[in-house]
Structures are given as structure tokens and as C-alpha cells.
């Protein structure tokens, strides 16, 4: 029996018959990326149901040199959860909320809790867990933390990293680090939790977290406004930010095509306007106070912007159902790109003041590479994060378009770099952006990262081939 075979046997013994998968076709859902961009391979999917089981499985893998790919909801966009060999460790059975403390404004949970379930639990005690993104119905909090997910409310509440007070992680050798402290102030040496957050499972496996809760908004005003240009879209953001401040929780820009696609392909989605406009913004204001002051503030700023010809049309949600309609448009964009053929996604961030310059320069550069390419540009413009997605030209060959991936993304990344932006705002590195990391981050930065990796995962079993090439 080979080293790895005996290791797998030991893992099966630890987990019991319901605790693993090692046959097709069930393996497939864990081996492959959901859009079909990466196909992977693994010998087994471990589904531990306790931290102790995670610890035992990792200790076995450490001893036998079996690669471990941690996986939550498998909703990542850069191939970070796709295995090349070894095992996938799925957190799906680590799905209990351990404690919810409305007085301390915290929730402690296992890392396999689905994001939407955490939101609901918080809501049940009149609190808000603000992390919110398109995949929230299936992504799991461990994955959100491992990738330092962003989403639609970063503008007001920060990234996943900003929402964590305490963490529990299992190290590659099986040791459990219990840092489940729900403290807002805790200056006691290196802040280790931040090593694991955003590490994409390359340093250990997050098994639990203490998360921050916020007061639940009582007023919520949501609208979609239309603009002639991206410049005006940013001008309104600036005004709104200056006048509404903390109340402005989301500001999502969408170009014409990124609204047309969900309207065309998304079930039950309708165009909020009678005619198309070049740019739109989905904007939301919230406040924990009672009353109608937000609506008045919103109407006042929008009214003025309308008179100043910055905004040319708009719709304001008059009910929760209409608010859901508006958000559905935004959330369905990535999915509704699929029926339009191949797409290349660029998750970049740029200083807000330079977003329009970026768009103009990138459009020009990309048009040269693939004439007729379609720009599906949208994103959390309020925090400078832009999803500069590109759909293949109508009727073009899918494979031929995808073959130009780097010809298209390289000039975009160059422009992003020139404008002091980032080539990966919220999706991470995974397998997709390893070369960009080497290209755009300094030698010192890479050395530091590699030292951390070597110190925590000396055998290199944790999610190998992600972030770095080896």
C-alpha cells in the first residue's frame, strides 16, 4: 500500500461512511469550478463534522504528504478551491452557529455556515451581519474569510477582514489554534487571525469565527439612477458620499449592457426604464433610526442632481419587493453573461477619482485586441472596485476568444497598475492571477509572503499551486 493510499484509508476511518465521498459522479461537484473554467481532480472529499475531525484529517495528510484543498461553497472565481490532487476538505458539515450575542454585537459560528444563514440568524435578534454578495445563498463563511470577500456593502462596513473579531483555525500539522475572542480591543502580539483571512487556504483551515454584528437598519432606501456617462455616475457618488456619509451603504455602477443581459436572460427581471441609458447606479441608503429622513435626503440629492443634469432618469423602490427587483438585476449580471458566450472577468480596483480614465483607456486597448468585444462593466464603484468583464463579440468563436485571455487582460492590468490600482480587488489570486502577483508585487513583498507560507506550512500540503506557482 502506497503512502498516500494508507493515508486515505486512515482518513476514511476517522470520518466514517457519511463523512467522505470518493466515487463519481458525486466527486465532480467538488473537483470542478462552477463555470467550467477549471477541471480538477482529487482522490477523496473529506466532510468532517467537528473541529477535532478536521484536526485528525490534517494530521494524517501532514504525515503522508497528501495535498489538502479547503473548500466552502465552491463559488470562487479564481480557481482557488479546485484541486490538482490529494483531497478536498469541505466545510459543509461544519455548519452550526455556536453563539449569538446581541449585547456584544457578535455571532460565533462554524466556518461551514452558509453566509445567508448567518445573515438570517443576525436578523432574528434584530442585528445585521453586513457581508453580502451574489453567492450568499451558497457560499460559506470560511471561504468568505479565506478569500477576504468583498461584496456590495464594503463601502460602509468594510471587507470580510473588517468583520472578524476572533478566529479558530487548524494548522497543517493538525494543531488547533483557538482564537475565538469576541473583543474589539486585543493588542496581544501578532494579530494571527489576519494571516488566515485572505490566505486562500494556503496556511491552514479556518474552522470557526467570531463575527461583528451591527444595528439592523430600520430605514432603507434603494434606487436605480441613470446617467449619460460614467463621469456623471461618479459625480453623483461623490455628492451622495459627501451628503449622506455613513448612510450610503451601497453604490453599484452598471453600464448599459450589464443591465440588458439580466433583463434578457434573468427570470422575472424587467427593465426599470422605458429606454436604455449608457450608465446606471444602484444606490442604497440605510439607517438604524426610525422615520422618513433618509427618503427626504435621497429625494433632495437626486432632485438637485436631476436639475443639474447629472442624473437623467431614476426609479426609487416603493416597497421591499421593488427593492428586491432592483438588487436582482445587479446580482444576476455574472450569471446572465453566460448565455451570451464566453466571458473574461477582471476584478480590479482603481482610486475612484481615476475610474473614468481607466474605463476610457481600457476600452480603447481592448477594442484593438478583439474588435467587437462587448463591455459588461459593473461593480462596487463606491469602493473603487470594478468588475471590468468582457463578453465575446456576437457570433464569435468561444475557444478563439478565450485563447486571447492574456492578450486581453495583460494591457488591462498594465493600465490598472499605471493608475495605482490593484489587479485583484476582491476575488483573490487562486490559480488565475499567480503571474500577475509576481509581476506587480515587489520582491520584498513576495519574499515575506513565502516566509509566512514556509513557517506555517513547511510541507507545502495546504492548497498547493494557489497564490504561488508551487
Amino acid at each position, binding site marked *: 500500500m502506497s503512502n498516500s493510499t494508507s493515508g486515505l484509508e486512515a482518513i476514511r476511518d476517522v470520518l466514517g461512511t457519511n463523512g467522505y465521498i470518493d466515487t463519481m459522479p458525486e466527486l465532480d461537484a467538488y473537483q470542478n469550478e462552477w463555470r467550467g473554467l477549471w477541471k480538477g481532480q482529487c482522490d477523496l472529499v473529506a466532510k468532517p463534522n467537528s473541529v477535532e475531525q478536521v484536526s485528525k484529517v490534517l494530521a494524517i495528510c501532514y504525515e503522508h504528504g497528501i495535498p489538502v484543498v479547503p473548500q466552502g461553497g465552491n463559488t470562487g472565481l479564481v480557481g482557488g478551491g479546485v484541486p490538482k490532487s490529494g483531497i478536498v476538505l469541505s466545510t459543509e458539515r461544519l455548519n452550526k452557529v455556536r453563539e449569538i450575542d446581541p449585547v456584544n454585537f457578535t455571532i460565533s459560528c462554524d466556518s461551514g455556515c452558509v453566509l445567508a444563514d448567518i445573515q438570517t440568524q443576525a436578523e432574528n435578534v434584530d442585528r445585521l451581519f453586513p457581508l453580502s454578495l451574489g453567492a450568499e445563498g451558497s457560499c460559506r463563511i470560511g471561504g468568505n474569510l479565506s478569500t477576504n470577500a468583498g461584496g456590495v456593502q464594503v463601502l460602509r462596513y468594510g471587507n470580510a477582514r473588517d468583520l472578524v473579531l476572533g478566529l479558530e483555525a487548524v494548522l497543517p500539522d493538525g494543531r488547533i489554534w483557538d482564537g475565538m475572542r469576541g473583543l474589539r480591543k486585543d493588542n496581544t502580539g501578532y494579530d494571527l487571525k489576519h494571516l488566515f483571512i485572505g490566505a486562500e487556504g494556503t496556511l491552514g483551515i479556518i474552522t470557526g469565527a467570531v463575527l461583528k454584528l451591527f444595528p439592523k437598519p430600520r430605514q432603507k432606501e434603494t434606487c436605480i439612477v441613470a446617467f449619460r456617462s460614467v463621469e456623471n455616475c461618479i459625480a453623483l457618488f461623490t455628492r451622495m458620499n459627501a451628503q449622506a456619509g455613513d448612510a450610503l451603504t451601497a453604490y453599484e455602477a452598471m453600464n448599459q449592457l450589464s443591465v440588458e443581459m439580466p433583463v434578457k436572460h434573468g427570470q422575472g427581471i*424587467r427593465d426599470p426604464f422605458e429606454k436604455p441609458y449608457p450608465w446606471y447606479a444602484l444606490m442604497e441608503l440605510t439607517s438604524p433610526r426610525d422615520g*422618513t429622513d433618509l427618503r427626504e435626503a435621497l429625494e433632495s440629492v437626486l432632485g438637485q442632481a436631476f436639475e443639474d443634469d447629472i*442624473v437623467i*432618469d431614476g*426609479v426609487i*423602490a*416603493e*416597497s*421591499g*419587493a421593488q427593492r428586491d427587483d432592483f438588487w436582482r438585476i445587479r446580482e444576476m449580471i455574472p450569471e446572465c453573461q453566460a448565455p451570451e458566450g464566453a466571458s473574461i472577468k477582471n476584478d480590479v480596483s482603481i482610486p475612484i477619482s481615476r475610474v473614468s480614465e481607466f474605463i476610457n483607456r481600457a476600452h480603447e486597448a481592448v477594442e484593438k485586441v478583439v474588435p467587437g468585444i462587448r463591455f459588461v462593466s459593473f461593480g462596487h464603484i463606491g469602493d473603487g472596485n470594478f468588475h471590468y468583464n468582457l463578453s465575446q463579440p456576437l457570433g464569435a468563436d468561444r475557444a478563439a476568444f478565450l485563447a486571447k485571455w492574456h492578450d486581453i487582460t495583460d494591457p488591462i492590468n498594465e493600465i490598472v497598475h499605471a493608475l495605482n490600482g490593484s489587479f485583484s480587488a476582491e476575488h483573490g489570486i487562486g490559480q488565475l492571477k499567480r503571474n500577475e502577483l509576481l509581476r506587480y508585487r515587489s520582491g520584498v513583498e513576495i519574499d515575506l509572503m513565502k516566509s509566512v507560507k514556509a513557517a506555517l506550512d513547511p510541507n507545502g500540503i495546504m492548497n498547493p499551486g494557489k497564490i504561488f506557482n508551487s
Partner: protein
Amino acid sequence: MKVLVAVKRVVDYNVKIRVNADQTAVETANVKMSMNPFDEIAVEEGIRLKEAGKADELVVVSVGPVQAQETIRTALAMGADRGILVETDVQVEPLAVAKCLKALVEKEAPDLVIVGKQAIDDDSNQTGQMLSALLGWSQGTFASNLDLGDGTLKVTREVDGGLETVALKMPAIVTTDLRLNEPRYASLPNIMKAKKKPIDVTNPGDLGVDVTPRLTVVKVEEPTKRQAGVIVADVAQLVDKLRNEAKVI
């Protein structure tokens, strides 16, 4: 032709309903309120009749607290011409609303009254029918289509067996069902315009209507929680559970 539409301010459809502490009513303090969705459909139908040139004026009425003006304002932003609030802090029952509407119909003399088939808070499904009886007007309830001809109105109704079409003599009352139309969003320019549209405020007393509740609420409680299901291992266990636990076979 003049159309009158009634709208009710209710707890928003997306809000999770809670019973208040003393179990006398549903909690409405600090809860988002919106226009009853069936009434939105009624407003939309009125606007479409106007846009089709079949109606000249669309008047929106609400019976309720001062905040119901916001609901009327929403209807005005969708495209109604003016509003009337019958202001009262009493929890009005369908008969009281129907009587208020009757008084306004006599004053405003519309040719057609459109109301939602029911409000999603109390689910009474009575106001339209009561108004029809009080006025002696014809009624077309649960409408999924309206076809307005010369002096007649064909209403397609959603009934258990399928669709039924009735021809009504005008003036008439119509109550709306879900599939009648898809209400539009209130656009920014129209929201601004709506601020200048008039809302008259009156009250039940001025209309000669006594809105004192005739029903006494004994107790309000949440439905019993549904037990979680179990997955049975095989047919034998299923049959056993049906026979010995559920006692249905």
C-alpha cells in the same frame, strides 16, 4: 371618464410579521410600511386606462392614519392625478372603509372604482364587494383582465375552474387579482412632479361615517411552528410511521 382607486397602507410584504407583546395585534411600530400590492395593481390599471385615453382623471383614496399620505404620494408618483386621505387612527374594518368610499363616490361621481381584491394584512377580501352592495353597482371581482367598451366593461375573473368573463354595466366596481398587470416603478421625474399634486384631507366624521370597530379581537397569535421532517430509511418505516405515529392509515 373618472376612475377612483383605493389604496391601503400595510406592513411591507417582505417584513417578517411579529405579534405584539400583549397579543392584541401584529407589531407595526418601527416596521416598514408600503402600499398593499393588490392596490398597486389597481393604481396601475387606472393609469393604463388613462394612458389608453379611456379615462380622464384618476383619483386615489386612502382611509387610515396621517402616514397613509405617503402611500397616496406613491400612487401619485406612479401617475395618479390627485389624492384624498380619509384620516383616522382607528383600525378600520372593511365595512367602515366601504362606507367611506361610498360617501366619496357620491361626492366625486366616478364611473369606475378599482380596489385590490384584499389587503395583505387582514386578508379580508370584502371591501370591494361591500362597496358594490352599498352603491348598488355591478361588480367584477378578482380581475385578471379589463376590457372597457362603450358603457360596458368586460372583466375576466380568475375562478377555481379557470377564467370567467363577465360583462358589467357601468358604473362598476372592480377588484384586482395578481395577474391583471405588473405595476410600474415610480420614476424620479414623476416622484418630483407628485410632490406638487394635491392631496385633500378629510375624515370619517365629515363624511358622516361611523368607523367604530364592530369586531372585537380576542387574541392574536403566531401559527404553531411546523415540526422538522425526518428522512425515513425505507418504505416499511414510512408505512409504520404513517400507521403508528401519524395514524393516517
